[in-house]
């Protein structure tokens, strides 16, 4: 199942907190698309999500933000 989260209006650390909260609510195998401001917000969320054991990668960067795809793995 695909989930979506827009945190482009959030500031650190709420970007990562909201991404982590959403990740904790999805099922194993689901996919979460997170829209973030590019640059530091995207880099730090990617790094922290990966540190916490989730699979994550930047899908694409465009105009106002970057899409990050994260998945919960068992």
């Amino acid at each position, binding site marked *: 199942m695909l989930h979506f989260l827009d945190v482009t209006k959030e500031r650190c650390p*709420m970007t*990562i907190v909201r991404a982590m*909260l959403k990740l904790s609510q999805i099922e194993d195998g689901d996919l979460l698309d997170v829209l973030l401001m590019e640059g530091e917000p995207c880099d730090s969320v990617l790094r922290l999500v990966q540190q916490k054991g989730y699979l994550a990668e930047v899908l694409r960067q465009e105009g106002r933000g970057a899409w990050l795809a994260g998945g919960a793995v068992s």
Partner: protein
Amino acid sequence: MIDFTRQQLERYSRNILLDSVGFEGQEKLMQAKVLIIGTGGLGSPAAMYCAAAGVGTIGVVDGDVVEISNLQRQIIHCTGDIGSPKVASAREKIKAINPDVIVEPIQAFVNAANIGSIIEGYDFVIDGTDNFPTKFLINDACVMKRIPFSHGGILSFSGQTMTVLPKESACYRCVFHKTPSKNMIPSCFESGVLGVVAGMLGTIQAAEALKFITGAGELLADELLTFDALTMNFRKVSLRKNPGCAVCSEKPSITDLRDEEIPACDH
């Protein structure tokens, strides 16, 4: 998992980001009940940090009123609180830090008759008292009720603390046995203390409470931490449960709580 409000997510974000706390640990904090006996030098920072961390219910016990001589170290109280009950002053500051905390003020000194009902229902107790008889009373009551607690004591520039997990780790009486005789206890005249030493130790006690609730890290169980703020030397001494302990052994000689005389200041 509970539904965190946006405000809670923001307020506790720095806790939540910690791997060993996370959402689960924050939820445990918000559901926890911590009792702080004594809202003085140790109890002040302990109460303030527990409140800031989001401990759901904080009980504060003290029979004193705020005096001007307290303000050098008892940072939960302010000049305008002089003459007010310490528990009322503490409640006001805790609510100002975090309005979500339920505060249970108990304006009393603990004694053998009331301590059992006062500590009942709390998950963790912080001993912030300033005399040996009460420290032994808190130890004995917590061991009997199987409530984990943090012991703390300060004098001059030094402090000591240990965390007691009743029946699992060494208790205060395993180590110190009984109230020292009067000539071994510093008199009021000799018992100066640098205010920050109280802050350092009370903060360590709050850390132990938060770690116990969240399960993060390792507690000061079976260990006595001592420090000297003059040299900034910190030392941990390993402790062992005393199989002959009068209160926590298999065959305790103390099975009822007793009041001991609290020495009054002669000066």
